[in-house]
C-alpha cells in the first residue's frame, strides 16, 4: 500500500536539499511526503510508452544573446542585501572543506 518514506530517507533528502530539519519536522514530513508520493503514483495509470517528455511548451529553440558587455552592478548594490560582507567580499561560514 503506502510505500512510506522512512526517517532515514527523509533525512537523506533533507541533506541533499540542504534543509536543516527539526525532529518534529522529520516525522511530519515523513508522513506528508509519503501521502504526496502515493497520490502522484497515479501517473502510472497513464500509458506513456514511446511518448517524448515535454520540458518546455513554447516550442522555441536557439535563443541567444550576442557577446556584448553590458553594465554590471556597482559592488555596493551587489552586496547591499548580504548579512555579512568584508572588503567587498561576501562572507560565508567555513563549514565545507
Amino acid at each position, binding site marked *: 500500500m503506502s510505500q512510506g518514506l522512512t526517517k532515514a530517507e527523509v533525512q537523506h533528502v533533507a541533506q541533499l536539499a540542504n534543509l536543516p530539519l527539526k525532529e518534529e519536522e522529520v516525522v511530519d514530513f515523513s508522513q506528508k511526503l509519503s501521502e504526496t508520493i502515493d497520490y502522484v503514483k497515479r501517473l502510472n495509470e497513464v500509458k506513456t510508452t514511446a511518448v517524448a517528455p515535454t520540458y518546455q511548451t513554447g516550442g522555441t*529553440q*536557439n*535563443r541567444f*544573446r550576442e557577446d556584448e*558587455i553590458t553594465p554590471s*552592478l556597482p*559592488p555596493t548594490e551587489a552586496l547591499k542585501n548580504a548579512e555579512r560582507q568584508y572588503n567587498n*567580499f561576501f*562572507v560565508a561560514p567555513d563549514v565545507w572543506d
Partner: protein
Amino acid sequence: MKYTPVIGLETHVELATASKMFCGCSAEHFQAPPNTHTCPVCLGLPGALPVPNKRAVDWTLLLAEALQCQLNTQSHFDRKNYFYPDLPKSYQITQYEKPLGENGQLEIAPGKIIRIRRVHLEEDTGKLQHTQIGSDRVVLVDFNRSGVPLVEIVTEPDFRSLEEVDLYVKKLQRIIRRLEISNADMEKGSMRLEPSISLSGDEVPVPLPNDQLPPYRVELKNINSFRFARKALEYEIQRQSELLTMGQKVLQQTRGWSEDKNATFAQREKEGEHDYRYFPEPDIPPLEFTPEELEAIKHKIPELPYPRAVRLINQYGLSDYQADLLTENKDLADYFEKAVTTAAKNVSPKEIANWLINKKIDIAKLSPQALLAEIASAKETTTISDEEMERMVREVLAENSQAVADYRKGKTQILGFLIGCMVKKIGPKADRNAISQKLQEKLRVS
C-alpha cells in the same frame, strides 16, 4: 609486480569571450576588484534568468570539430544541483545528456590516439578564499568569475604514461590557442586539469573495455599547474602501487595536491554529494543545428598546429623536432613560412629553421626580411688571398706545436681548436670550411 597507470583527463578551458556565459557582465576577471563584474544573473539573485552567449556556443562547436567530435544536431543545457558557497544559484548550468560534441579523438603521437568522450559548455563558479575574521573561520566569496563560459573536454582513460598526458596537454593547448578561443593559460587558471588515475596489472590495451577497467578511480582536483599535476600523478602511481602490492584496496575518492607536504591528500566527501539531480534547464530553449550550419563549422577550422607541422616536414624537409617547435604558435609558424617564401636560393628552409630555433630571435622586433638579411651577411666570408692563408696557417701551427703533435698522434678533435685560432686571426667572418681544409692539408704533411 609492475603496474600500468590507466589515466583519464578532464580539462576545463575558460573561453575568452568578452561577456559571461549567461549575462552581459565582463568575463575578464583576472585581478579585477572583488564583485565588480556582477549582476542579478551571475549573482543568482531571485528572479534572474540566464540567456546563452552565442559566441561561446560557436567556439565550443569549433573546438569539438577540431577534436574530430560528432556534433549533435540537438543539444541543450542541464542543471547540476549542489550546494557550495561559490555556486550562487546552488546549481550550475552545464550539459549532461546532449553535449555539443561527442566521440572525438586527438592523435598525440603517430599511432597513439586519445579518445575524446565529450566536449561540452558550462558556466564557471565564483572564487573562494579561506580566511579568518577575528576568531571566525570564514570563506570570502568573489563572484567576478561566476558565469564565465567554460568548455569541458573529457577523455576516455586512454593514457598509459605521464609522457602521454604531457603530449596531450601541450597539443590541446596549441589547438585551443590556434583557434583563438582562449589563452589556455594554466597559471592564470584559464586551463585546468583534473586527471583521474588507477593502476592495472601489466598489459593494458587501449581502448580498455569497460568491464576490464580497474575497480576504482582516484580523481585529482584543484591542481593549478601542469607541474603539480605531474607530481600528483607520480605520487599517486607510487601510493597506489604500494597499496596494491600489499594486497590492499585503493579507495575510490577525490584527492588534492599539497605542495607543502609533497603528497596528495583525501578531500572530505559528504554523503550524497554526487547526486546532482540533473534535469534539463527549463529557462533555456534547446539548441538545434541544421546540417548546413554544422558543415559550415568545418570550414571555419584553420590549419591546426599538428597538420601544419606535418606539412612543413613534407614541404620543406624539416625534422620532426624543428616542425614541432616552429608550430608552437601561429605567429612563429607564419613568420617561418614568410621567411622561406621570400628567401634567396642559397638560404634553405632548414637553415632558417635553425636560426629561429637556436638564436633566440624576437620575431616581434625582427621582420622576416631583416632575419634573411642577417643570415645572408653571416654567410658572407672574409676573403683572403691564398698567400695570406698559407702564412696564417703556418703561423698557427708554429704557435701551437703541442696541439699539432696531439693531432698527429690521433686527437683529431684538436682541429676545432686550431680552426678557432685561425678565426681569431682572420676575423669572425672567416670561411671555416676553407680554413679547415687548409689546416688538414698542412697537418697531414709532417
